[in-house]
């Protein structure tokens, strides 16, 4: 997510919300006061002999950090200065070794040498190039043409394109801006219910937060000490389910409230074939052929591999088969359309041709990046680099790449990388001291005071992150809070991959929730704020009010909350993506991780927890 710099309208509610956020932070700091000051004194019998500051240095340090941060001085420097300042105090009080800071340069070299973090600039650069390549416009136009003639069609197109943009550009702001400028006027022109139109666009835009290759997941994985590839694969099923319930919502509306999501009138459905047909049959046939080829490929995949490599037939992992089958089906369709076009065979209708040529390059890019990461062929860093190169190629093919765009994308990427990495540098300095003064034990004691064990912890943390998501940039939450929460979660037996996906989903909900969600501000900045005369219909169309934007978000926030609840109740939704099959004790949210997953080393080699993963329930770790 790039930093919000657009005008956020000042609101009367702003101050109130601020108080809520402060209260949430105060809760974290203030709890020891409520449960007796001695909870803060950690494992030391001699605590009473020390001074007040020495006994309470962890809460004081954390409280000071919050104060420093809300002054508005850059986060990176506030964090680092807080770490240094309290480090000196701790050394002075004899709480930390005098050589505390000698370890600092080595820690910073560790940050520099962490090549997982390279994925951040790579995916950022890829997104910046793609968002200006005109891909979003073509996708919306084409998918809108396909679905336009059915009820709810444009809304479906927005959801599906939103998901595709999420898997490629991965920038919420860019998705909301594109869809708000292209699809919103169409929806308003042809009489969509405005709140539904606004909600669909915002919710589909926020999908970029959760669908891989989301930056959010990279940073969460890094902070939780898990592999990015695992985090991506774990997020895969939940994000598909999320897109699924959005689609379901639109479909249900189309049946229950048909006037809210009308089909486009015939004159708005784009050019027709020479013989007056819509050309949809041709598209349907092509799609059916592609699907059949894909399925056939999946069924015989193991034999094809054996034939190509000359090895005996082996069981292929399910996800590899799926990815390869999708590639085969789509590749066949593209090849057919290409041959048709080159030879002028006129076997395909114009719409089928358009769909093939517009949809397939971004799909190919998604496979190039995510497919290779999922299959373990590439590390996320390499996937990001190939994605960036693919994005450059696509922009060149569209004639959109020029020097000024390249420079601007590089410039923005460099600045974003710099501020993100500096927040990480700052948090390294902070945590050096915080660990030396046993801060993590203080945090653990805070959460011990909560009722409900692991579940109480999960609920408290999700609520806290939900509220903080209104006010803080995602990176601040990830670099400041996650390192504090991760050890506690680990100790409570919470699976950190599942925890990471849950946090990403909660943050996404936060970005969509009125009145502070970032997505709402982006839509507000592009939606018409005054009445206007529509150029096509010559009708007067009234402005989209802020109240309509807020109301539009609500049903989707409810859908999000349902998804969060599903994640909490059924952790399998996340873990299935990892090929894990063990049953989970839902009440304790305790998931055993096979040892192999803990390794942090070469991701390419241990991407599969269980090679040749068996279908759920049949694996070696069958339900206990």
């Amino acid at each position, binding site marked *: 997510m790039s930093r919000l*710099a657009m005008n956020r309208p000042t609101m009367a509610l702003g101050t109130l919300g601020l108080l809520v956020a402060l209260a949430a932070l105060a809760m974290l700091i203030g709890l020891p006061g409520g449960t007796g000051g001695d909870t803060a004194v950690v494992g030391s019998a001699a605590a009473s002999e020390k001074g007040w500051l020495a006994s309470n240095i962890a809460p004081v340090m954390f409280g000071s950090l919050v104060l420093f941060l809300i002054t508005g001085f850059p986060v990176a420097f*506030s964090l680092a200065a807080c770490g*240094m300042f309290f480090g000196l105090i701790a050394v002075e009080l004899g709480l930390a070794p005098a050589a505390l800071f000698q370890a600092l340069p080595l820690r910073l070299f560790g940050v520099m040498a962490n090549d997982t973090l390279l994925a951040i*600039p790579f995916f950022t650069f890829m997104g910046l190039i793609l968002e*200006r390549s005109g891909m979003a416009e073509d996708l919306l136009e084409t998918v809108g043409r396909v679905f336009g003639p059915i009820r709810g069609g444009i809304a479906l197109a927005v959801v599906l394109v939103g998901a595709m943009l999420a898997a490629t550009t991965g920038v919420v702001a860019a998705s909301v801006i594109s869809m708000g400028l292209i699809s919103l006027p169409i929806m308003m022109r042809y009489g969509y219910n405005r709140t539904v139109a606004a909600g669909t666009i915002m919710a589909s835009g926020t999908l970029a937060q959760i669908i891989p290759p989301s930056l959010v997941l990279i940073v969460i994985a890094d902070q939780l000490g898990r592999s990015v590839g695992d985090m991506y694969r774990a997020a895969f099923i939940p994000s598909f389910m999320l897109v699924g319930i959005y689609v379901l919502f639109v479909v249900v509306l189309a049946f229950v409230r048909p006037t809210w999501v009308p089909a486009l009138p015939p004159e708005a459905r784009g050019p027709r074939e020479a013989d007056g047909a819509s050309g949809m049959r041709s598209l349907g046939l092509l799609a059916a052929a592609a699907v059949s080829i894909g399925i056939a490929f999946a069924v015989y995949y193991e034999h094809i591999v054996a034939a190509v490599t000359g090895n005996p037939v082996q069981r292929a992992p399910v996800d590899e088969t799926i990815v390869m089958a999708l590639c085969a089906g789509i590749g066949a369709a593209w090849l057919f359309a290409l041959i048709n076009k080159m030879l002028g065979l006129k076997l395909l209708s114009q719409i089928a041709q358009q769909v093939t040529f517009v949809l397939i390059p971004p799909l190919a890019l998604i496979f190039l990046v995510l497919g290779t990461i999922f299959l373990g062929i590439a590390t996320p860093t390499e996937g990001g*680099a190939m994605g960036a190169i693919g994005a450059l190629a696509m922009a060149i093919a569209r004639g959109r790449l020029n020097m000024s765009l390249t420079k*601007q994308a590089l410039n923005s990427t460099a600045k*974003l990388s710099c501020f993100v990495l500096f927040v990480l540098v700052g948090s390294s300095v902070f945590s050096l001291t915080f660990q030396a003064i046993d801060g993590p034990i203080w945090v653990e004691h805070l959460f011990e005071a909560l009722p409900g064990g692991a579940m109480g912890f999960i609920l408290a943390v999700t609520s806290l992150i939900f509220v903080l998501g209104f006010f803080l940039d995602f990176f601040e939450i990830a670099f400041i809070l996650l390192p504090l929460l991760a050890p506690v979660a680990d100790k409570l037996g919470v699976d950190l991959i599942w925890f990471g996906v849950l946090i990403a989903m909660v943050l996404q909900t936060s970005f969509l929730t009125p009145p502070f969600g970032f997505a709402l501000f982006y839509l507000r900045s592009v939606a018409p704020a005054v009445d206007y005369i529509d150029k096509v219909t010559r009708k007067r169309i009234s402005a989209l009010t802020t109240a309509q934007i807020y109301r539009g978000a609500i049903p989707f926030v409810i859908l999000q909350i349902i998804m969060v609840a599903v994640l909490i109740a059924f952790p399998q939704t996340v873990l299935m993506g990892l090929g894990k099959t063990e049953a989970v004790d839902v009440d304790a949210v305790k998931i055993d991780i096979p040892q192999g997953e803990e390794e942090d080393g070469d991701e390419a080699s241990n991407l599969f927890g269980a090679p040749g993963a068996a279908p759920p329930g049949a694996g070696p770790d069958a339900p206990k």
Partner: protein
Amino acid sequence: MTPLLAFTRLVDRLNERVGNLVYWLLLGSVLISGANAVVRKAFNMSSNAALEIQWYLFAAVFLLGAGYTLLHDAHVRIDVLSSRLSRRKQIWIDVAGIVVFLLPLCGAIIWLSWPIVERAYLTGEMSSNAGGLVRWPVYAMLPLGFALLLLQAVSELIKRLAFLAGQGPDPHPKGAEKTDEELLLEEMRAKHADDRLEIAR
């Protein structure tokens, strides 16, 4: 004030130049990483030097770019509260922050990391990976980057004090620099302006 402001112009130009140079290293890193992945898979060849150069380049980008990022006021802030303050108060906070937080921080990191760079240079320390790269150039990025940040911090401090003394412009007036979102919005607005012409009065 004049010689001090001349100093700020010099530093600003230096960091602008450095920033505009280092972002090309990112493109280099992208290309090397992509090529490396393909070569590793296609020819089953891998080189630790090629792997290490990627993060060497990235370390150079984010460390040497720190001063540039500060020059463009792009280090992320939590502005929920401070955005409600007057511009003068915000600038006072920056002044205090630079003096109390940023300058000591830069000094401390340069002071702590320099001996390590020096030792790595003198001993010719190499990467522990076979065929890896020599270490001191990347270690040197740490004090060098923080030195550029230190210079820029001094420059920003002078510019802010000049503003507070009424002798200079606001160093970062609101909306002076366009974000990527604003650029995208502008470009798309220009293209789709005819979709909803004639805003009704």
